[in-house]
């Protein structure tokens, strides 16, 4: 029983990571490495929270979080796609920018509670039928709507990337933008659209923290989860389905220590704290040794110059 409760809690803890990772997968598929996930999450957190406080509307809060993320993505896209600035530096600046904006706007809401009606929307809502499935029902289908949204976005993203024409085009751009360009794909438009969409999805991860998880405004709610998401993209090999497994695994690792400590499990909490990073390193090592297929988009991190062939 306690294992079930733990697994259920792992889904909770992994959800902000899932959104952040999915967004980053989409962005990186377009060949742009965005290290600003942490900043995007914070933009989403403050965007959603402030809109929720002002309008008392859940829908507006979610839309505002998406919009805040997309605006952050727009800055990033303008710098890296149009101006072809260094992607690493731009991403890092975006993190600093997002942290600053969230801190500044957040001063208005510091320590204030989200309206009750929004909290109520994000209460647990077991799905009919599905939640009755033994074991799986308890773990996956007795959550709030935000978590179900995470499942849907992950699956939709997988279908989009691997089963649709635009998804194929996008992957082509990530692998070889010049070939894509030659075949008549508007590379920059694709990059813009997907960076914006990816950033908006990442921002939802932050919104989950401020709207559902800890619905009181607090400075820096993400506490480094954006960086874990960057590692998770590598862990999941740029695949949205694997991102689901990865995010919940990392979410579980985040919280398993608290439960092991209580049964006096003979493993140091400091070791447990290291697990996500160790696993990422191991995956990197293995994926490098057994290079069946290099999973990262080949043109990742390289600015696209149309004239430069």
């Amino acid at each position, binding site marked *: 029983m*306690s294992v079930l*409760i*733990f697994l259920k*809690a792992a889904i909770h*803890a992994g959800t*902000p990571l899932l959104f952040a990772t999915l967004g980053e997968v989409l962005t990186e598929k377009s060949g742009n490495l965005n290290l600003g996930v942490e900043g995007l999450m914070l933009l989403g957190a403050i965007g959603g929270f402030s809109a929720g406080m002002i309008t008392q509307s859940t829908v507006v809060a979610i839309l505002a979080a998406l919009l805040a993320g997309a605006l952050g993505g727009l800055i990033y896209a303008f710098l890296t796609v149009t101006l072809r600035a*260094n992607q690493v*530096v731009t991403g890092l600046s975006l993190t600093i920018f997002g942290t600053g904006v969230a*801190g500044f706007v957040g001063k208005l809401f*510091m*320590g204030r*509670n989200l309206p009750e009606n929004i909290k109520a929307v994000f209460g647990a809502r077991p799905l009919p039928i599905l939640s009755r499935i033994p074991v799986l029902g308890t773990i996956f289908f007795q959550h709030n709507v935000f978590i179900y949204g995470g499942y849907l976005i992950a699956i939709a993203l997988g279908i989009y990337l691997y089963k649709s024409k635009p998804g194929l085009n996008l992957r082509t751009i990530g692998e070889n933008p010049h070939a894509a360009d030659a075949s008549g794909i508007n590379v920059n438009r694709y990059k813009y659209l997907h960076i914006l969409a990816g950033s908006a999805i990442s921002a939802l991860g932050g919104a989950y*923290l401020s709207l559902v*998880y*800890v*619905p*009181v405004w*607090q*400075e*820096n*709610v993400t*506490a480094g*989860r954006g960086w874990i998401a960057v590692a998770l993209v590598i862990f999941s090999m740029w695949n949205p389905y694997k991102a689901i497994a990865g995010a919940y695994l990392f979410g579980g690792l*985040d*919280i398993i*220590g*608290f*439960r092991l*400590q*209580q049964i*006096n499990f003979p493993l*140091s*909490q*400091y070791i447990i*704290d290291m697990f996500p990073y160790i696993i990422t390193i191991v995956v990197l090592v293995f994926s490098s040794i057994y290079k069946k297929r290099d999973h990262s988009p080949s043109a990742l991190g390289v600015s696209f110059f149309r004239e430069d062939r």
Partner: protein
Amino acid sequence: MRKLKIISVLVLSLLVLLTACSDQGSEPQGTTTKVGFIYVGMIGTEGFTYSHDQGRLYLEQELGVETMYQEAVDESAEVETVIANMVDQGCNVIFGTSYGFGKYMLNVADQYPDVKFLHCSGAQDAENMNTYFGRMYEPRFLSGLVAGLKTKTNKIGYVAAYEISEVIRGINAFTLGVQTVNPEAEVEVVWTHTWYDPATEKEAALALIDNNCDVIAQHQDTAAPQQAAEERGIAAVGYHSITEKNAPEAYMTAPIWNWNDYYKSEVEKVIAGTWTPENVWLGMNDGLVLLAPLTENAPDGAAEIVEEYQSKIIAGDFHVFSGVITKQDGTTIGEEGQALSDEEMLNMSYFIKGVNGKIETN
């Protein structure tokens, strides 16, 4: 070539930042008193840094002195830069409110002989630097009384940051309070290894609640553990500041800081020219630490027993760590009729009986 570009951009932006900083104040130091505060966290509306900032505002209001502060300062050589900047802007009293600042404050203390350095929770001093802290274990004990009366499952969860003696001392004092009113109850400790991370703190509290704890206490910087309690319909004890509005159905009370009087008296001494570095560890009788008023979530009878012990502590008739205390491993410490010395309390590195948890030693 690209690397060069990156580096030059970084250097340039650093230069811009530095000039921006030094532009602000060219006022010569000297006659007027200006007080600088170095904070490890953001001020926010709760937590350790918030409590210090309340003290800073009190100084402005009561003494009319000018103050400045710097939030989110790293416990690194950054402290020295911040100090240089504060002195540059005319500060002649600097409060550093984190343990890890001590080393760096000490490094530069002799460079600024006219500046008084006051370091919170430290162990170092110098001719112009003292260290000060509060006996938080006293109100922690009182909060344990409340928790001990409240619990029905006789399991109380404690979300704790790091395995250092300050935290351990708090847990032990809390447990002594719990056992004073409820010898059956035990305190379950979970380490988070963070001072500030709302989501992680909440997760740790939820893990405790899933393990049948029905009161949550904390040595953390946010109200997230209390929100976990609120969500699950159980009770909570806060820390640092009053956070009733963040968990109205759960919050019972909190051991809190009140730096106002100490800060005022120290700065008054500086103004009068009578300040000397005096290391202090102030308790409830000095008003530096206290138990926040109980809310109606607190159990019946708690107010009376808290009042009883509170007046004994303030009068000096009761010491939290006195008599023979049994440690977790069965050995004992202390002697009948005697209290532990400050030295012994400051170096506490063991749990007492009644605490379920593990202190990892290197």
